[in-house]
């Protein structure tokens, strides 16, 4: 018997329509309610990680997940046996189980019974519950009328939607200028000698004249019959293809996400689909098919009620999951307790040779560690990878400007890249190497296939047998040529026709540079060299490439931001302003932008001309250290690649990751954020001696400089959605890859440059493909801030709506006191003391390479003994 806790909630985020039944059916409100449940994943070109279950984020984590399971028919936890295996392998301790049991809110006796039941075998308890998406009223069409409405209507709908929204794959575009989806439907059904299937019958065709809202009401009345079921019917219909519904809603609300704008609304989609269904039902079963309202046993169908559903949280799995998370979290917490408190150590610090600023990204966690291990005189910092500079960027090869900042910020400045020497641009189309990208079917194609087709045999064989040789001529944005410059300084205050300001003024630059330096606590003790390391990832044959790039740059490589930051910080005018504000950058200090390619583990340094006259010795030394750090980093990553070299050679590992990133047959160029788990906001000294196994986001922060918590509030409001979004997207994609994730990548087909689908007529897949999350340990993020609770409280008051992430425990927040390293866990009702058992000891090792030896799974936090703070 599976113990469950029953929760009944009125789950509306805004509880304003408790009187819904009294006032009858309001279409617009119903659409608003329903759209709340749709996924919000944008087109492929930019990938913004977000909480997959944003619809239930206002609830506590476990309740929200249970409610979502009831709507979407998804799993909520891993299978019971997975947790039990973890326990057997020592990755969950008894102490963690006790901790989780304490918090499940049961009486002592029932708690003991629950504890006893934890170890019994049960293959089914993690299965999804009876859900709206799979067992709702729409199953009636199949079970009673024997009409598979989804199979009939979806192809028609998907094809039309895909062609309407297409961004450049099809040769003939469907919509005319400024034409709405509905007008387009009308045109194809009523003004065509061959009406769009299934609108052959005049009666259905004429129905469309009523306009979308009336069509919806009419169809619902014919097909459902009972007003109380209307909203649920619409929701179930949309959940039949969540990918397309979500995409349409997203485009309706943010038309600018499409490069070629389209005028479409969810209402029009619903109206068209309902009309299709009605037409098909009439075709198959005549005009007098039975309505839903006439269904026997209508009571046994799960009811939506605007999200007010009774849900059950399976307690056993909940306890296991919390125990797993808490054990993983306590590994870090235990280690943190014993970190030296900076400023107290008697030994004098060695002089800092160079400073390097990285993105907070967990993939940079290991690179920073290796860099510091190789040369302890290098100091590293972490900041959100757009480096505080928000702008739209148009590179040399870009036809459209793209936003280079987190999704929450709307940039106002446009930066254009220009060639330093004016060279003639190659014509971009018609290049021989790219011929296969157009399908060539007719006469020209006849000629091409006859003549060039044979050449592709050689090319294919070359690509498959000699990957990494670089024959595939797709230039990646992350491999930007280093010889160009950005137009950063604003010359005129006249905005562009689109309303953007072309470049920044010096005070604006100083605002941004100073703001970032203050955030990370780098306001004094500048080294002669500061390297700004952005990151990007190059991969071939990968439609999800944007999900591999920098999350803080809305799924782009961060190179433009690093270049902009370095250029600004090198400007004398900017430094003058900063000096007035208390940040004195010495004249000898210079900033160098660079880009770390996380899949190939290579680094590119930009704008060499801007520091030609500087002292290059430090830079040379830094480049040398960086090179070796990258080799070591490549080897550390290789331990996850089963087909990679499991040798001790860093060189072989590096060659492997380069080949991997340029192979057309490699679905895993890298494992991205897999196993992300921690987020540390504090001084580097807190984590410098820790081996965190590439699992931590690291943001630099100086607790001493922030008495009011203002800086903390700024940092939190930037990183909670970014890191939390990454973490939860990986978590849910891992827990149910077929509902919350995108399934396996292998059969994916690119649809209209918008998304991927299975096969030609599938729904768009949202979430992450299985190749990205397969090794992920699904645990929530533990965010540790190095600040006293009092100041954190002040900061939390300033982050507004984001607090629901913490209150609902979608992220766990721990405060680590800067002087005593006392740890306290945030809870909705106040801070809780954290007590860790004495048995928990942090293992120690001399250096990273010793730790990773022969390990293929995640590695607990280690203390690095060979290092000095």
């Amino acid at each position, binding site marked *: *018997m599976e113990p469950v806790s*029953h929760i009944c909630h009125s789950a509306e985020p805004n509880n304003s329509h408790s009187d819904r039944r009294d006032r009858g059916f309001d279409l617009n409100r119903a659409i608003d309610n329903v759209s709340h449940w749709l996924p919000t994943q944008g087109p*492929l070109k930019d990938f913004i990680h977000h909480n997959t279950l944003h619809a239930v984020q206002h609830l506590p984590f476990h309740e929200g997940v249970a409610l979502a399971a009831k709507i979407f028919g998804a799993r909520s936890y891993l299978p019971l046996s997975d947790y039990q295996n973890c326990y057997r392998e020592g990755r969950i301790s008894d102490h963690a189980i006790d901790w989780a049991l304490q918090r499940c809110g049961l009486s002592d006796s029932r708690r003991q019974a629950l504890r006893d039941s934890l170890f019994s075998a049960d293959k*089914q308890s*993690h*299965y*999804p*519950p*009876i859900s709206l998406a799979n067992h709702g009223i729409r199953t009636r069409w199949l079970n009673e009328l024997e009409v598979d409405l989804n*199979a009939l209507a979806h192809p028609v709908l998907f094809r039309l939607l895909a062609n309407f929204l*297409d*961004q*450049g*794959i*099809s*040769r*003939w*575009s*469907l919509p005319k200028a400024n034409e709405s989806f509905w007008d387009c439907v009308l045109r*194809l059904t009523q*003004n*065509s*000698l*061959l009406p*769009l*299937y299934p609108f052959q019958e005049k009666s259905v065709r004429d129905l469309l004249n009523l306009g979308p809202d009336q069509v919806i009401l009419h169809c619902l009345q014919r097909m459902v019959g009972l007003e109380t079921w209307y909203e649920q019917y619409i929701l179930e219909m949309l959940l039949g293809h969540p990918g397309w519904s979500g995409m349409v809603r997203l485009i309706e609300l943010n038309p600018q996400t499409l*490069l070629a704008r389209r005028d479409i609304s969810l209402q029009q989609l619903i109206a068209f689909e309902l009309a299709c269904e009605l037409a098909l039902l009439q075709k198959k079963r005549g005009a007098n098919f039975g309505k839903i309202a006439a269904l026997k046993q209508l009571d046994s169908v799960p009811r939506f009620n605007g999200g007010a559903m009774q849900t059950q949280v399976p307690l056993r799995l909940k306890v296991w999951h919390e125990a797993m998370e808490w054990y993983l979290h306590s590994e870090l917490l235990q280690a943190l307790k014993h970190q030296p408190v900076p400023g107290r150590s008697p030994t004098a610090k060695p002089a800092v040779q160079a400073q390097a600023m990285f993105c907070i990204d967990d993939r940079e966690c290991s690179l920073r560690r290796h860099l510091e291990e190789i040369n302890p005189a290098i100091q590293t910092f972490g900041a959100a990878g757009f480096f505080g500079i928000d702008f739209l960027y148009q590179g040399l090869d870009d*036809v*459209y400007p793209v936003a280079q900042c987190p999704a929450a910020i709307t940039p106002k400045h446009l930066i254009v890249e220009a060639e330093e020497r004016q060279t003639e641009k190659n014509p971009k*189309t018609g290049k021989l190497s790219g011929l296969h*990208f157009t399908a060539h079917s*007719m006469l020209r194609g*006849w000629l091409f296939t006859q003549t060039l*087709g044979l050449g*592709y*045999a050689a090319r*294919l*064989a070359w690509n498959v047998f000699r990957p990494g040789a670089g024959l595939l001529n*797709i*230039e*990646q944005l992350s491999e930007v040529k280093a010889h160009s410059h950005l137009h950063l300084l604003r010359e005129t205050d006249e905005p562009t026709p689109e309303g953007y300001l072309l470049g920044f003024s010096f005070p604006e630059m100083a605002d941004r540079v100073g703001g970032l330096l203050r955030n990370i606590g780098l306001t004094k003790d500048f080294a002669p060299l500061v390297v700004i390391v952005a990151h990007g990832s190059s991969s*071939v*044959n*990968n*439609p999800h*490439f944007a999900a591999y790039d920098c999350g803080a740059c809305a799924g782009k490589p961060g190179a433009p931001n690093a270049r902009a930051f370095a250029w600004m910080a090198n400007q004398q005018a900017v430094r003058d302003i900063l000096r007035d504000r208390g940040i004195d950058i010495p004249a000898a200090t210079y900033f160098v932008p660079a880009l770390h390619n996380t899949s190939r583990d290579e680094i590119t340094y930009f704008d060499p001309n801007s520091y030609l006259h500087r002292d290059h010795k430090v830079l040379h030394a830094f480049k040398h250290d960086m090179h070796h750090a990258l080799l070591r980093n490549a080897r550390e990553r290789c331990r996850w690649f089963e*087909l990679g070299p499991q040798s001790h050679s860093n060189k072989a590992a590096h060659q492997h990751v380069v080949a991997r990133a340029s*192979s057309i*047959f*490699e*679905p895993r160029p890298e494992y991205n954020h897999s196993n992300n788990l921690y987020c540390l906001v504090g001084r580097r000294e807190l984590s410098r001696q820790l081996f965190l196994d590439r699992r931590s986001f690291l943001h630099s922060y100086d607790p001493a400089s922030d008495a009011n918590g203002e800086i903390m509030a700024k940092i939190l409001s930037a990183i909670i959605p970014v890191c939390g979004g990454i973490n939860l997207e990986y978590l849910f994609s891992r827990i149910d890859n*077929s509902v919350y994730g995108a399934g396996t990548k*292998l*059969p*994916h*087909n*690119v649809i209209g440059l918008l998304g991927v689908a*299975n*096969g*030609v007529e599938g729904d768009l897949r949202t979430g992450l493909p299985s190749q990205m999350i397969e090794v992920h340990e699904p645990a929530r993020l533990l965010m540790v801030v190095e600040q006293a609770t009092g100041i954190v409280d002040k900061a939390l008051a300033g982050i507004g709506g984001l607090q629901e992430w913490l209150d609902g425990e979608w992220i766990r927040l721990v405060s680590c006191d800067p002087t005593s390293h006392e740890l306290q866990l945030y809870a909705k009702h106040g801070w809780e003391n954290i007590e860790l058992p004495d048995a928990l000891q942090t293992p120690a090792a001399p250096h990273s390479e010793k730790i990773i030896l022969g390990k293929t799974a995640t590695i607990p936090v280690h203390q690095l003994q060979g290092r000095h703070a």
Partner: protein
Amino acid sequence: MNSLILACLAFPLLGMLSILLFGSSEQRISTISLWSSRAKGASVLGLLAVWAVAGFPAHEFAWFDLYTQGEYRFPILFYLDRISAVYLFCAWVIFSIIVRYCRVYLHRETGYQRFFLTIFGFAFGLNLVILSGSIDMLFAGWEIVGVSSFLLIAFYRHRPQPIRNALRAYSIYRFCDVGLLLGAWMSHLLFHDSQHFSQLANLFQHTAMPPAGYASLLILSWLIVIAASGKSAQFPFCFWLPRAMEGPTPSSAIFYGALSIHLGVFLLLRTMPIWTYHYLPRTMVLVIGLLTVVIANLSEKTQSNIKGQIAYASITQVGFMFMELSLGLETLVLLHFLGNAFLRCYQLLVSPSIVAHLLRVEGSVDTDFVIKPSAMREFLPNSIRDTLPAVLQNTLYVFALQEGNLERLVRSTLWDPLKQIGARMNRVRPAIRYFSSFGLIGLIILGKNETLFDRGYLSIPISVAMVVASLSAFSQKHSPFKVWNAIATSCGLAGIAVWMMEPAVYADVLLFLSGVLPSWLLGIGVLRRMLAQENFAEEPFRYRAMAETRPKASLLLFLSFLGLVGFPITPAFLGEDLLLADATRLHPWFALPITLAFVVNGIAAARVFVRLCMGRPSEVCSQAHESA
């Protein structure tokens, strides 16, 4: 040379068997597949080298007679000439690249073993087709390719859409197999022993005296063309190809981009002497090619997904090949085939790059509609000048968007009538059914003494009953037992009908039934075990995912299915051929009902198999349900 030919066939088969037997881990499977593809490559290259040294002869190799009875012989016959050499080479190149590609691409994928099994099965079937020396042999390979294609489309069996599309492709294959089956039979009938590909050309050399009448040659050509256009997705069967792109990308590339789609062309190349003999079938091939080019080219213009676009581009090129064939440009076709196969394979494999390419390199975002109405506007009367072009434009777009409505056309002309008849039969009251079957048995007993009427006539009601049984299996949705029984009944009736016509061939009938009966019994037994705890009629449309929950039972059911539909692993395959040959010596009309039954049985059985074995294991937490 002969042993090399056998090696070309043996290595894929060996690879498949050893993957089946020893493929316990991914590492081992990949080692086995790598080595067997290398061994295959060595034998292909060796064969081609030996063949080249021998001066590119048209080489025939008769291994042994599988079955001989009277004047009927079923020889295992291989044939290598220029056409097979080109196909063999291309198949080797693409296959070895794909095997290498999938080593990494499919890493950690569930169904790794299944994938390599099917792809080796495909390689075996393909080489069998390419090296076959007669239409019979070709048909065996053809069936193997068809079934492995079906399995690969439904590779992701958790989702209903791949399953539906696999069934769609399979039913088209099955229909077009009629063409090949009847074609094989007719070539027996017309050319007797000389239906070997090696002798076809000689047959037609004496232009003065054709080996058979024009009418029968015409029918034969027609059958061959149907078979070819089904496999190559030509008019009117274009629609299945893009929808078959459901498996992992490399499998789509090898099947629908590169090799399988060109098998129709291969068949036409092989049988060229037959259908080029007369200008009518030539024109037919030309028209099919032309229609395909037009429709597929239009459809390609409105494909907003990359794989669909490549599929239609490929279909168009195959359409061109058909046209070239009808003009007799054999060498050009071979060249074209190579070019198209490599190009499409490459295009499909790199299809995910399209996003990076279009957005980052070309930045081509919007396209323009290419129909320019202005030119013809001048000639139109003022009143319709503005409306008519818009109507035409919309019509053209809808036509292209719906891919020429070919799918609905095929469905409404081929399947719907059959389904309706079957459904009507199923509604007939049991009493009437029993009555008529008793009547039939009575007639058979009456006919025994051969005094009242000629026994041969009895086969007419029997064959009608056979077709009826098949159709009732086809439209039966609520009970898999009934489907299986109806199929077995239909097969049994086929046997009886032949026996009625010619009592002397009872041995052939027994051979046929010895393949069918055990399969049927096996099927019934497995079904009984599978459905013991299920109430099938309650949810007849659910995919039950037995392949995962009960893998052994579903493997048995699959074998039973193969046996029932006459797949070349049981005597039923040979028996089918024999029955046709025996029965139609005297009664040519019988070919039609028996092949109809054969096709329909296959689809009905596949449908049952799919409903029971494919799908996602139903995962519902019943616990939560109870307490709710």
